[in-house]
């Protein structure tokens, strides 16, 4: 029988904008904090996985080692769009499952600064002087804005609107209520990039970016890092009682990509792979959605969170609008979702996100979440989506002793 997998150390830096630090500082802070949290040293880590969308091609993992310990262990530099952090954790877990390590470190980090909501796509692209077909679509010029939008705010807006087309009771107001909730939740989280409460009217009245997503319904860009120390159940038995008592069990770890669907020709489908990942995760864990005490899911835009209520089976089929209308995902509701403030207000430094949501859930399961603690939390789920697409789902459980 396969060995259990555990988180014994978890950390995250505050999310925000830290122009005086570099990406290695951020990664090192999270890594060292996670090692301290696990009462472990870098010398005990047998593998290292570092997720960073922008710096993975530049040997960031090895550059991190040169600050915190060059022990010669295998390093995996990981990039998988917005699922980068979860994929780094999963990479570390695979080395445990393969028997190549019994303790490993996974770090997620990104330094985005004020790159703007649209990133590099927000800058003007020169039109070619002469029209020559190029690329896989034989296009003669950039087609963003000419053949619809493929930028994130619009893609996720259309994903939400497709759900609204297929189901009753979903509209601008339901999407806006998601952001109202996450902004309110973030006020309790000292690590969040923003901690300001907004009324539903303020959310709906903010600058429209891509209907129905207003500026307050879009995640910000920012800097931050998170890290976890993971180990096998066999290794855990040899560790100090203080470490074992705070250990959090990884009951499911799943990564999916998007299977073929007809609408792929228009835009990536973010729902099917999430549904598959959730179903696999519940089966792995032997748990169901009703067992969840909290969920951290990928609310890159408010429209995305709403459709993931259904994709993760948190609501009845077609019931996502009703789910938010009756405040079920608020921190005092039946299934608290994004009590950290979510990507919308806690922030979304891309590589850090999938590790930071493990930190968040683990912290609640340990009963150490302070003002935002979900009392008595025993089981939690984390979810991230990288557009293109990759979906990571993890289910964590409090240690039973």
């Amino acid at each position, binding site marked *: 029988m396969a060995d259990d997998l555990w988180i014994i150390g978890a950390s995250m830096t505050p999310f925000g904008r830290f122009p005086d630090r570099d990406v290695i500082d951020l990664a090192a802070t999270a890594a060292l904090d996670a090692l301290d949290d696990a009462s472990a040293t870098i010398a005990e880590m047998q593998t290292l996985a570092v997720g960073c969308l922008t710096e993975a091609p530049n040997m960031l993992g090895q550059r991190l080692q040169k600050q915190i310990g060059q022990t010669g262990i295998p390093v995996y530099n990981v990039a998988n769009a917005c699922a980068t952090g979860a994929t780094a954790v999963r990479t570390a877990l695979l080395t445990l499952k393969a028997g190549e390590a019994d303790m490993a470190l996974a770090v997620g980090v990104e330094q985005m600064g004020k790159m703007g*909501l*649209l990133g590099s*796509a*927000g*800058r*003007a*692209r020169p*039109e*070619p*002087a*002469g*029209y020559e*077909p190029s690329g*896989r*679509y*034989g*296009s*003669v*010029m950039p*087609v*963003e*804005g*000419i*053949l*619809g*939008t*493929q*930028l994130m*705010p*619009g893609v996720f*807006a*259309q*994903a939400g*609107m*497709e759900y*609204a*087309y297929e189901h009753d009771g979903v509209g*601008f107001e339901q999407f806006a209520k998601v952001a109202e909730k996450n902004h309110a939740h973030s006020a309790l989280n000292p690590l969040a990039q923003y901690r300001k409460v907004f009324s539903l009217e303020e959310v709906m009245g903010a*600058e*429209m*970016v*891509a*209907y*129905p*997503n207003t500026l307050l319904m879009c995640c910000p860009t920012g800097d931050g890092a998170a890290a976890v120390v993971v180990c096998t159940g066999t290794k855990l038995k040899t560790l100090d009682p203080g470490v074992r008592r705070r250990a959090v069990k990884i009951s499911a770890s799943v990564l999916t990509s998007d299977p*073929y669907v*007809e*609408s*792929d*020709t*228009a*835009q990536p489908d973010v729902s099917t792979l999430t549904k598959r990942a959730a179903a696999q995760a519940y089966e792995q864990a032997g748990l169901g959605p009703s067992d969840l005490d909290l969920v951290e899911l990928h609310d890159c835009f408010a429209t995305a969170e709403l459709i993931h209520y259904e994709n993760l089976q948190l609501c009845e089929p077609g019931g996502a609008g009703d789910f938010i209308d009756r405040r079920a995902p608020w921190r005092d509701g039946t299934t608290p979702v994004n009590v950290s403030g979510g990507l919308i207000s806690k922030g979304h430094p891309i590589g850090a996100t999938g590790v930071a949501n493990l930190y968040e859930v683990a912290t609640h399961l340990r009963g150490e979440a302070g003002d935002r603690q979900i009392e008595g939390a025993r089981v939690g789920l984390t979810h991230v989506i990288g557009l293109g697409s990759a979906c990571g789902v993890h289910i964590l459980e409090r240690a039973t002793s």
Partner: protein
Amino acid sequence: MTEAPRRVPVVDYLSLDGAGGPVLRANACTACGALFFDRRNACARCGAREFEHRPLGTTGTVRAFTIVKRAAPNVPVPYVSAVVALDGGGVVKANIRDVEPDPAQVTLGMRVALTTFTCGTDVEGTEAVAFGFAPAT
């Protein structure tokens, strides 16, 4: 006498010279019928490697839309982007034209028809022609 300007499609899956007017043309997998607009190596659905060009329907239904208000400086806003399911198969993204960019004017499930428009002119005077959809009666 002035010569009509040369016109090229903005993407190669838009055909301007069809007998019945402009039409979108997909690469259809000969094994399973899956439709693609890009150059293909093999079929994403079944793995087969043979394709044929297939003209698609010119009418369809809006399955999703957004009204884009923030974009790169050289992209005029606001505009309506939509996911359109074509009658007879095929799903495509394009702008909805000839409609106010206002959520009260665009509706989910609205019927639309293919339309074309000039989206640019290069230094030699060649016009690039793009496609969009307009409300159909």
